[in-house]
């Protein structure tokens, strides 16, 4: 070594690895030894051998290194775990608040995740889901564009024949179509879907029996679900059997479907061929017209074809067939329909996003609890950390320890959360009207996601405590006075404010949707919807409705009866190109049509604004032949005359005189404004508006069951072949806003949970503060402070935060609520008192939560407080 030899450097990477493997500073010395030895080998046996020797040393070290690591980390984890469990056990309130908060938060997350997953699964089960499209239209009426899924019946065959990219198309005739089925002594009125035979080919509804490509080729064939097959035939294999429809036709059962998956937007029990309808209605041109937009058309595209390109090509196709139509046809991906609708902004996606956000918020609130309570209690742990640091723990070790603790808590929380979900799932399903299952072991998402959520919330919750604790200086920490430092208490305040802001925001949003729903329930629709019962017209009644009406009027308890073409939940047919004197060229309203008899206004209690309604005495024929019309106020406004009675309006060559104006009434769900309307007397075939379909009866509020029983006996006597069906109109209205009501109910539940978790945190924080200020309170009391004074002193701080939270929550909640209300044409104004009440509610809850602790601290004997010195 003394004689100067060439010095060989061992390979750099090898040295680096060795340096990494060797545990600590002390062990770096062998690096030198290794280098020397390396040189020795290199001198004696050559550099390559030396090099391989060096590498061999490293390889030999690795197993030892790994075992060592495992051993020591096991030892450390044992220590951390022991300390963590001791902390949990010793500070019971703190642990219960943290773990239960995290558990509730995670349970919310899991439930919402299940719900969202179910929502996202809609319509994904079709084999062709990726290239299934709905044909929809943008139609222009003057300056407004209306988007709808209605297409003319000729569109489907045209698409299939003329565009090579479109492999197949299927039409569905917009219903509802109710038919009377009879098989032996079983008679029921059933809703059916009338579809093209290709329907079963492009959609994947599992056919248990029968051949999907031929099942609906015969006009008198029917495909039914297994449930219905059992109901009518008592077997799930009734292929070839016949069922009597409308007492006229014998239908052959050609297919049995498995139950329609719940996550399908198309729900039906029976499929009949669309050709049947044109024969049943004796309407041969039904399926080849370009004028009647009452068909839904689905298209199956070639794999790889871009639907935007195809949309561009097909845009003008309807106009080509129907000159009066001013608009474009376009393709809309089928799988988007459930969540996004036709792309006009409405759809369930808003609720899905909202709930996902709430799930995150609630978990965040729970994590904030953890952060707050942990940092508040930093002082209690300071000595432990000081000691750890002094005995050689690095900052990273402390971070590891605190992360470990929060993750442990989170996993305990997860365990509880899973139990909670199992218990609460039935309630949740009831709330959301879903049937989601919580099947961890069959869902890879859950199996990975649940520990993922726990880990994530553990890391989020542990983030600040770990950083704060590890940053403390051991010298300062071991002193008694170190506790809630000013920096951490400032951070805590922000978190509490944030937490309460979220809770208040949720309360406000809940309040707004509650008010809006209440408003919709009680909004004056322009007619009286109470005690209105209706019976669909079928069978013999189609010819004898007038007689039926007279019979019903004889029943005691029936005050008025009217025949109508629709129920006022949605008027679908209508037309444009109406003309009148002085009409400006850029006005072309789309006018809805409705047919009824002369008792409509008296039965529905709709007021006349001008002129008079149709009456039996005046009208000897229907309004088309008589050339007379009744319009609504909105159309009168558009026509632009104060009193349009006597004005002539015309469509193409037909001229009509307006004889009356009725007060506007709502004939759409309140999302949309009910626009101009023409009320026809009796019938108006050319518009596509059907004959009378419903008998409406206004009942006297007394003894309704008896009246219904009488109606039933009258109707079944006249129409014995058909089952008696009746509905109350207000029930229909109750169902109309179910989505909003569900959303509102879900919101309410989670808002309450959010507030609850926030309060848990506040409670914990307050109890900690009270404990910290025990001595201060003792001294104040000794010096003569009153109990109220002390309660106010301790409570004041928290309330300041809650007030601040209000300031943050209000504008945000206003914005979110405002956006939601845009969905409704008829909406409430967001009043300031919703904010005030929500704020006050949060305030009161906070006061109650905090004052429990502050009163306890205030009434304690000061001797106790001061003695422990």
């Amino acid at each position, binding site marked *: 070594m003394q004689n100067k030899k060439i010095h060989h450097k061992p390979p750099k990477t090898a040295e680096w690895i060795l340096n990494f493997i060797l545990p600590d500073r002390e062990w770096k010395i*062998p*690096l030198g030894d290794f280098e020397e*030895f390396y040189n020795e080998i290199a001198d004696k046996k050559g550099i390559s051998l030396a090099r391989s020797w060096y590498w061999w040393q490293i390889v*030999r070290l690795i197993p030892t290194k790994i075992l060592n690591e495992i051993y020591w980390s096991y030892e450390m984890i044992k220590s951390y775990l022991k300390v963590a469990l001791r902390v949990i056990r010793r500070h019971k309130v703190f642990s219960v608040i943290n773990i239960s908060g995290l558990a509730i938060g995670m349970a919310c997350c899991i439930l919402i995740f299940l719900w969202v997953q179910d929502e996202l699964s809609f319509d994904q089960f079709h084999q062709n889901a990726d290239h299934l499209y709905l044909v929809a239209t943008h139609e222009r009426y003057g300056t407004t564009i209306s988007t709808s899924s209605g297409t003319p019946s000729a569109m489907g065959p045209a698409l299939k024949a003329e565009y090579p990219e479109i492999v197949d198309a299927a039409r569905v005739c917009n219903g509802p179509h109710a038919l009377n089925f009879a098989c032996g002594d079983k008679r029921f009125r059933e809703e059916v879907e009338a579809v093209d035979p290709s329907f079963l080919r492009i959609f994947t509804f599992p056919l248990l029996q029968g051949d999907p490509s031929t099942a609906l080729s015969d006009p008198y064939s029917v495909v039914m679900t297994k449930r219905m097959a059992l109901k009518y035939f008592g077997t799930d294999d009734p292929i070839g059997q016949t069922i009597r429809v409308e007492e006229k036709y014998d239908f052959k059962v050609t297919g049995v479907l498995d139950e329609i998956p719940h996550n399908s937007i198309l729900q039906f029990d029976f499929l009949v061929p669309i050709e049947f309808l044109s024969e049943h209605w004796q309407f041969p041109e039904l399926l080849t017209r370009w004028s009647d937009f009452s068909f839904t058309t689905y298209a199956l595209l070639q794999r790889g074809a871009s639907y935007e390109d195809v949309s561009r090509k097909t845009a003008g196709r309807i106009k080509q067939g129907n000159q009066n139509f001013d608009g474009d046809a376009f393709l809309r991906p089928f799988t988007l329909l459930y969540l996004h609708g036709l792309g006009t902004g409405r759809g369930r996606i808003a609720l899905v996003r909202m709930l996902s956000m709430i799930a995150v918020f609630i978990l965040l609130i729970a994590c904030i609890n953890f952060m707050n309570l942990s940092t508040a209690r930093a002082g209690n742990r300071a000595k432990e950390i000081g000691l750890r640091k002094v005995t050689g723990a690095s900052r990273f070790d402390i971070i590891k320890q605190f992360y470990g603790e929060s993750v442990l808590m989170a996993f305990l929380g997860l365990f509880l959360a899973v139990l909670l979900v199992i218990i609460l799932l039935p309630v949740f399903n009831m709330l959301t009207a879903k049937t989601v299952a919580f099947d961890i072991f069959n869902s890879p998402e859950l199996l990975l996601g649940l520990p993922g959520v726990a880990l994530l919330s553990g890391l989020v919750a542990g983030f600040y405590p770990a950083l704060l604790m590890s940053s403390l200086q051991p010298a300062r920490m071991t002193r008694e006075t170190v506790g809630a430092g000013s920096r951490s208490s400032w951070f805590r305040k922000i978190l509490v404010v944030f937490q309460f802001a979220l809770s208040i925001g949720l309360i406000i949003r809940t309040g707004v949707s509650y008010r809006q729903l209440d408003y919709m329930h009680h909004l004056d629709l322009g007619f009286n919807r109470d005690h209105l019962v209706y019976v669909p017209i079928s069978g013999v009644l189609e010819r004898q409705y007038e007689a039926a009406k007279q019979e019903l009027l004889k029943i005691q308890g029936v005050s008025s009866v009217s025949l109508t073409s629709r129920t006022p939940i949605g008027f679908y047919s209508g037309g444009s190109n109406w003309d009148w004197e002085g009409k400006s060229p850029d006005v072309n309203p789309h006018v809805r049509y409705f047919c009824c008899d002369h008792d409509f206004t008296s039965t529905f209690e709709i007021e006349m604004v001008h002129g008079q309604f149709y009456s039996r005495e005046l009208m000897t024929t229907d309004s088309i032949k008589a050339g007379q019309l009744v319009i609504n106020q909105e159309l009168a406004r558009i026509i632009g005359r104060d009193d349009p009675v006597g004005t002539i309006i015309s469509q193409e060559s037909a001229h009509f005189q307006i004889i009356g104006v009725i007060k506007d009434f709502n004939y759409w769900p309140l999302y949309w404004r009910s626009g101009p309307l023409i009320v026809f007397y009796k019938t108006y075939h050319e518009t596509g508006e059907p004959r009378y379909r419903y008998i409406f009866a206004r009942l006297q509020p007394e003894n309704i069951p008896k009246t219904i029983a009488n109606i039933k006996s009258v109707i079944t006597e006249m129409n014995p072949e058909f089952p008696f069906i009746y509905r109350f109109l207000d029930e229909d209205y109750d169902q109309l806003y179910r989505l909003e009501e569900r959303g509102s109910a879900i919101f309410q539940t989670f808002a309450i949970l959010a507030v609850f978790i926030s309060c848990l945190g506040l409670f914990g924080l307050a109890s900690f503060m009270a404990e910290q200020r025990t001595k201060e309170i003792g001294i104040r009391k000794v010096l003569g402070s009153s109990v109220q004074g002390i309660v106010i002193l301790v409570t004041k701080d928290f309330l300041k935060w809650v007030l601040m939270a209000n300031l943050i929550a209000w504008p945000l909640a206003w914005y979110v609520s405002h956006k939601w209300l845009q969905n409704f044409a008829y909406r409430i104004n967001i009043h300031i008192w919703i904010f005030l009440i929500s704020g006050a509610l949060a305030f009161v809850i906070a006061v109650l939560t905090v004052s429990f602790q502050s009163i306890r601290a205030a009434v304690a004997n000061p001797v106790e407080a001061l003695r422990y010195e």
Partner: protein
Amino acid sequence: MKNEKEDGLRLLTRTEELILLAVWRLKENAYCVPIRAEISEITGEKWSLGSVYMPLDRLVKKGFLDSYLSEATPERGGRQKRIYTLTREGLKALEKIRAVQSRMWNGIPELVE
């Protein structure tokens, strides 16, 4: 003292004994690399670095050896050496072994002709 004698004999393995002797012989230069070289030379067998580290460590723990860090040298890539020295216990143990061994070997002629 019976106990001490037994300690010296029982707790020192052959390797440890060799290493203690090597440390004694190397004096100021008694760190890992020369110790290994010394033992290899004397026994005529290959000794790895690892097989020297472990007994060295053990001897320090038992109190027979002490160690300090020397200054860095260039042939080690600028790293310090850990130099080992015998403690009083170490010396005593060696003495004891030597005495026992010489007593045992006393009067025994060459075993192999």
